[in-house]
């Protein structure tokens, strides 16, 4: 293992590997990724793989549009199959409040050039998903350019491309301490030795909190368990990711044919709990078979859980910390890190190498929690 580097990236999820790739692409090839377990072992490998552009704030929508643009070119750029599919996102409204908010969202999204349709329940069945049970659905928004990809393949593709450019990746290497010197970051101490570096990126999801704490830094991130399941593979019978904030569900059919999906339990207590619950399996089975009667007798082959790294405004924490120069954060993604990862990683790489980021990431710096500039996005599952 190297004992020094230009930059150490903590976390071998999609965010960490993507940042390493974009740094190396900019010429900073002397980077080391340190991962406590294996690639994609954390939130990345446990997520549903959706890539949505329909957000309720301008900043998030722009970030998402840019990310889809990058995702669409990623297979060529990284020379790998990531199962990228623009199957669309169908967002179901069940309440009057949903409906009002969605209309505002669509106006904003269309203003930013996104092709979003408003669909009546009849339209949903006629135009997008014939089999969907639209009972109780008031309307839906649909963006055909919304997408999905395989999080494992995407992470692997970034990691392989980064390696080809000279980045080294150390697996099963948990970070035990952030090293500081004269008020700056100076590297990391790991279970397998110390790596000295003037730049350190903390992209360890919920585990970013205990890692930052070793340098006396308190990140406003709380871990919450989110559960998910996958069924047997079936011939394709619907294309979009189907989600609803008020009904509480997201599900899609992956390339292999399996249906993958979950929901967030609002009563879930915070904590590093990654066990599976029967309650989730029961509720999710009911929700799925309610919306897609064909799935009534589908076999569930696996269920698992991962952690959302929630911030107070459900937005990530990005950029260098004022209190520890050289220590960059790329965490707190609050359940939508995969979908905005490509653009976020580019912006981080720009910030780290001293380029001017081509989208504003200052609004996502940790500073917002102290100077009170928090804007809530309502489109979080």
């Amino acid at each position, binding site marked *: 293992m190297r004992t020094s580097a230009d930059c150490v990236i903590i976390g071998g999820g999609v965010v960490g590997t993507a940042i390493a790739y974009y740094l190396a692409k900019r010429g900073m090839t002397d980077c080391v990724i340190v991962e406590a377990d294996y690639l994609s072992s954390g939130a990345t490998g446990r997520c549903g793989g959706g890539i949505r552009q329909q957000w309720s704030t301008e900043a998030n929508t722009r970030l998402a549009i840019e990310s889809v643009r990058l995702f669409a070119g990623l297979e060529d750029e990284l020379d790998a199959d990531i199962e990228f599919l623009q199957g669309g996102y169908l967002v179901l409204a069940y309440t009057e409040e949903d409906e009002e908010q969605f209309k505002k969202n669509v106006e904003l999204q269309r203003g930013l050039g996104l092709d979003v349709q408003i669909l009546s329940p009849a339209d949903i069945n006629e135009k997008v998903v014939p089999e969907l049970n639209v009972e109780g659905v008031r309307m839906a928004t649909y963006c055909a350019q919304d997408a999905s990809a395989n999080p494992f393949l995407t992470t692997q593709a970034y990691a392989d491309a980064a390696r080809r450019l000279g980045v080294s990746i150390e697996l099963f290497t948990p970070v035990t301490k952030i090293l500081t010197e004269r008020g700056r970051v100076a590297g990391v101490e790991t279970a397998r030795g110390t790596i000295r570096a003037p730049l350190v990126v903390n992209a360890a999801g919920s585990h970013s909190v205990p890692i930052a704490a070793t340098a006396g830094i308190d990140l406003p991130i709380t871990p919450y368990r989110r559960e998910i399941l996958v069924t047997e593979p*079936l011939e394709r019978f619907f294309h979009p990711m189907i989600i609803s904030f008020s009904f509480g569900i997201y599900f899609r059919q992956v390339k292999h044919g399996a249906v993958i999906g979950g929901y967030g339990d609002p009563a879930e207590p915070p904590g590093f709990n990654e066990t599976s619950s029967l309650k989730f399996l029961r509720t999710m089975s009911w929700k799925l078979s309610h919306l897609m009667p064909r799935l009534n*007798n589908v076999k569930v082959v696996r269920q698992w859980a991962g952690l959302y790294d929630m911030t107070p405004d459900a937005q990530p924490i990005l950029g260098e910390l004022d209190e520890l120069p050289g220590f960059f954060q790329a965490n707190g993604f609050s359940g939508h890190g995969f979908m905005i990862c490509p653009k976020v990683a580019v912006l981080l790489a720009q910030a780290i190498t001293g380029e001017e980021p081509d989208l504003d990431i200052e609004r996502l710096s940790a500073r917002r929690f102290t100077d009170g500039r928090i804007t809530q996005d309502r489109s979080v599952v």
Partner: protein
Amino acid sequence: MRIREHPILEFERGREVEFDFDGRRLCGHEGETIAAALHASGVRVLRKSIRHGRPRGFFCAIGRCSSCLMTVDGVPNVMTCVTPLRRGMKVETQTGKGTLAAEAKGAGSIAGDGSGSDLGTVPLAIVGAGPAGLSAAVYAGRLGVESVVVDENEVPGGQLIKQTHMFFGSLEHYARVRGVDIGTQLCRELEKCPSKLLTGTTVLGLYTDDPPWKTLSLMKNGVRGELRARTVVLATGASENMLAFENCDLPGVYGAGAVQTLMNVYGVAPGERVLMVGAGNIGLIVGYQLLQAAVDVAAVIDAMDEIGGYHVHAAKIRRMGVPILTSHTILSAGGTDRVERATISRVDSDWQPVEGTERTIDVDTICLAVGLTPNCELASMAGCDDEYVPELGGLVSAHDADLETSVPGVFIAGDASGIEEASTAMLEGRLAGLAAVERLEVEVDREKLLAMKEEAASGLSELRAGPFGDRPRLGKERMLALAASRGGDR
């Protein structure tokens, strides 16, 4: 292909029934599996692989490998190796991923909140009705403790139901008894116990998020139920290992356990001429059983430079003219949609094939007896830590001397806790069942409990002291050391 005469077994076949296979009318017997009935009619190709459309038959025949998935009565992805045949079934070769039938909204089996029927609570739940699971229930039962034993097969006994050979060993009443009869004896003893046996019931999941309860989600005939237990013994057995060689996915490449199931349980000959890969005890014993069923065994090969199994087993098949070729491996299988031949070669001291020593044998079946891997999925789901111990067969749930895992009240026994044999599985099951009783803190004769535990533990040491016990003994010692070193987690 049906075995009509057998020196040891008499096949009690169910009544003959007709069923439909890809539009053809075939006959089978009630009580046998769909895969067995098809095999008896000469059908080996059960599905086409999803990606490359390659022909696939079954491999494990015990519901583990998913190689036998077919469409049955319109339902895709049915494990035909464990699904019993019924009259008038419509069985189809599955060529793609499968399509579920469209259903009206609100139809089907899922209740308003998705819950299954409540099966109540029990002090001890046991997963697996093989030698370990049945022993756990019997010994807990002797102390008056109630249990529920769940097994996905219709017939209890686990792998014992296909063991036609007599057991060795010093065990009081099981030495010189055939495996199949041991299973029957254990079931008879179970009948005297306050234990309930749920056969044909799959454990879908094991949840430990409501301590001290462990909740088992069960499925029988498509209906789901939930059982809550204070303690659980996982006696889930093992899966047969595959070997990678060219065309190893051709129908006719079967695990040794699958061959035993087919011929000793259902009375169906796996083929006419077999190449046996693996000269450990399983390879040698199954080789002999094939000969008993009048199936030709072309050769037994093993990459090791010596025979791994008991020499008495080797001598028996050698006397019947079967060559045992050590330092040999299989290079490829040949055939279009089923095995027609196998190419083998000698290997050097680095396990590499020696060029020029290849030879091709005409066989229609290749039987793999190349080891087993413990089934620890349920334990893993319950949150049990695991350890990699090669001597025990790979990843195994960490456990202490009482076979308790890192999750208090969850025990693991038999092949699931490390690959050994049926005799040790029975003793481990006993020990785990008794340790579970101890953990329950119920009113029992404590002196008797400790004496019974001691008896089981010393029986295990005795069996592992033999010349073939080295590997598991080392494995178990390593496991205890590993479990002790992480003891602080408890």
